[in-house]
């Protein structure tokens, strides 16, 4: 784990020429990336009621291996490749069960549901995968909180299955599509967002009074990226591959405005990360102890 962080912390100046080649962008399953906050939630919740202790929220929950973004031959072979890890935090999907749902009946007889009359929808939370499904009386259901496209599909099917079995609706799984994917990634350098926003005046919107980040829209991918001065970037896009393409698109643009951290700042950031690692290790140890009973 520390290896990933160490890689990310390497300065990019080893590239030699001013241009940067995005070598590898790996979309990581947060369960395998222990320091991630989502991973924490997943492991905690999975270690709770399920007796299967240890390990993230199930192995095959979507480790996406996209094709390597090919770089042209570098000037000199590099000892470590700069890797940017994109963590997918949220996948929102929508599907239909193609039958009318009686919300009051579901609210009274279902488990883990809550009914909000003013919105006209029933929210059902599932433990594994940890997701929330919002159902409308028309039969349309929106499922949020999953961490990969495959997991979203599993969660959606589980909701439909629950409606079918427990509440005996003639439910069918139709029209599943992923609506929105939220991913975050951190650049190993800080970014001068004021200059960045001035270079792209129409596409990038920076209003320091309204939001501390630059909002950059990529129209052909339908992606919206928020770029922050610390180097974090959040992307919302219609699919996981779009998220990856968006990051690849923005990387050279942002690399131009990088600001290498001064030694004190780098030390401070490393100390903060080490602290975070230690805390998450502690919590995971506690939870795994609990589930080993």
């Amino acid at each position, binding site marked *: 784990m520390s290896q990933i962080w160490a890689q990310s912390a390497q300065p990019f100046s080893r590239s030699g020429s001013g241009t940067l080649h995005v070598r590898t962008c790996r979309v990581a399953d947060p369960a395998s990336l222990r320091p991630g906050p989502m991973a924490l939630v997943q492991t905690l919740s999975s270690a709770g009621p399920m007796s299967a202790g240890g390990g993230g929220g199930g192995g095959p929950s979507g480790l996406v291996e996209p094709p390597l973004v090919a770089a042209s031959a570098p000037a000199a072979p590099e000892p470590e490749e700069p890797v940017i890890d994109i963590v997918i935090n949220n996948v929102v999907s929508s599907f239909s069960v193609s039958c009318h749902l009686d919300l009051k009946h579901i609210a009274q007889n279902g488990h883990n549901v809550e009914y909000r009359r003013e919105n006209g929808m029933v929210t059902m939370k599932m433990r594994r995968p940890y997701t929330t499904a919002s159902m409308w009386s028309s039969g349309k259901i929106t499922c949020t909180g999953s961490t990969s496209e495959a997991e979203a599909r599993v969660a959606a099917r589980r909701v439909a299955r629950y409606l079918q079995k427990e509440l005996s609706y003639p439910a069918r799984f139709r029209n599943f599509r992923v609506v929105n994917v939220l991913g975050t990634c951190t650049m190993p350098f800080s970014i001068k967002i004021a200059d960045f926003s001035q270079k792209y005046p*129409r596409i990038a919107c920076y209003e320091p009074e309204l939001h501390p980040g630059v909002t950059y829209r990529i129209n052909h991918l339908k992606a919206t990226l928020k770029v922050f001065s610390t180097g974090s970037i959040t992307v919302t896009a219609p699919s996981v591959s779009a998220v990856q393409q968006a990051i690849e698109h923005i990387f050279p643009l942002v690399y131009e405005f990088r600001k290498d951290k001064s030694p004190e700042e780098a030390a401070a950031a490393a100390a903060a990360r080490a602290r975070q690692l230690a805390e998450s290790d502690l919590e995971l140890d506690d939870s795994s102890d609990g589930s080993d009973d």
Partner: protein
Amino acid sequence: MASSSGRKVQQIGCPAHPEAHLIEDYRAGDQICSVCGLVVGDRVIDVGSEWRTFSSDKNAADPSRVGGAENKLLGSSDLSTMIGDARGAASFTADGQSKYQNRRQMSSSDRALTNAFREIALMADRISLPRTIVDRSNNLFKQVHDGRNLKGRSNDAIASACLYISCRQEGVPRTFKEICAVSKISKKEIGRCFKLILKALDTTVDMITTGDFMSRFCANLRLPNYVQRAATYIARRAAKELDIVPGRSPISVAAAAIYMASQASEDKKTQKEIGDIAGVADVTIRQSYKLMLPRAAELFPPDFNFHTPIEDLPEL
């Protein structure tokens, strides 16, 4: 003499030179033949002004005018006559009711525009904005209104956003909070309308800098001129040249710079006072100040005379 019935002839002509062009002299009310100088027309109605106005007082009604100036923004469709307000005894009946009651016939699109212009003028008046900003704001509003992209939004919100944009475009930006203070719309809504208007009109605005607000904040705090200059210098160095405060809003940096400059001079202001004027929370000033304090020696202008030396600047 003039026109015979039926046949169209030139109305008046010089008897000696019927084809000659007539020169009209408005002062005397004559029409003069251009060839021989004979005066052929008389008592042509003088279209000069009735009154001679000498006072340049804008507020006094100009007696030469029959009505107000036409407002180009309000659409030139409205050339109808409007009955004015009831004044004088003759406009009231014996019971005390006004005789002419129906005064409502203005076209509805004009009504929305007029209301919005009045709102903009009111808001601008509260913060004493000059006429140029108000006019620019009215123009923006008319453009947005005609474009109809923001049709669903409240007109007051669009008006506030137009005022904000015009202040920015004139080079004297006001913070969102200052516009909120004179408007009943929330900052969030004004921000949303602002972004939508920029997209609808396909314009961009310059980014705000720390120096834009210095004179206003310092004047409200009644700080002497040399403190204001020092604060401007500090803020510019911190934000632009040394980039010590990444990601901080320029307003917060400006407030922290004012705090630093005032603490080093005789007239010390507290963070709370500065926060009240600038619309920034005092913890925010504290955070920016903490970032700036380690490099205070580089930030101050070289010719600043310190009432309190840099080592004694407060740590908070």
